[in-house]
């Protein structure tokens, strides 16, 4: 690991914060995409989930 000097904690926190936010953003987009695609496939196949009007 390279020496980041006396302010290393600020640098590390900046990169970790950005990495965490990007990971959350990617995760959210993928989960949302999967959930909506599954629901669409269900509706297009004509097999609505339990509890939805038919």
């Amino acid at each position, binding site marked *: 690991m390279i020496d980041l000097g006396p302010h290393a904690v600020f*640098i590390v926190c900046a990169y970790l914060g950005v990495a965490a936010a990007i990971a959350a953003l990617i995760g959210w987009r993928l989960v*949302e995409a999967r959930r909506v*695609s599954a629901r669409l496939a269900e509706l297009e196949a004509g097999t609505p989930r339990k509890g939805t009007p038919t």
Partner: protein
Amino acid sequence: MSIESAPGENWWTRIAHPGQFVAWSRRLVLPLSIATVLLFALGLWFAFFNSPPDYQMGDTVRIMYVHVPTAWLSQFVYGVMAVSAIGTLVWRHPMADVSMKAAAPLGATFTALALYTGALWGRPTWGTFWEWDGRMTSTLVLLLIYLGIIALWRAFDDQLRAARIVAIFTLVGAVNIPIIKFSVDWWATLHQPASVFRLDGPTMPPSILTPLFIMVFAFTFLFLVLHLIGMHTEVRRRRVASLERRLAQKGAA
């Protein structure tokens, strides 16, 4: 007929028809994702292992490689939304609504990250996390505008009606973008003036500009990937809503 197999011949239909748009643009996601990963790997290697500390700021200059790209995206994403808003209001382009809606949470996140990384860079260099000066305050206002736009989208069940109202709000809010850009020239501020895009050339050496540009491209590609995925999801969500409405009408009849 599934959402991705709707007919379409000319380029305008391929852009404007939601099903056609998803069909051709989904092929871009994988190559763009690979390019994003490679750019980030290269950018981070430069940022930590192949760029010098600044002669004044020391290693804290490395925060710039995440601060400047997120700050750039905070404004670029708004630009994308403003162009999409014109598409909604002038041409009633169906994908313009979708683009506006998918971009807003990304813009809000990048703006929040620009403020966060700016605060962490400000403390060791200026001695403070925050100052109510032109650049920081106008960027905070941008974040509030993004949050307002997200709230507006959620306030309406009818997304077509929401799109026109959000488009007007977005275009009014666009006045904040030049304010952010020129705030460092108009008012006394702790923030440094423009140092990359200047008439007399950048004030940084190539050893610092190289990682900066690679990271700017990496973040911009990341936005493109997430925006495309978000647009695809939004198209499908609207199709789901329409099918559910049809089912509900059938149930009521």
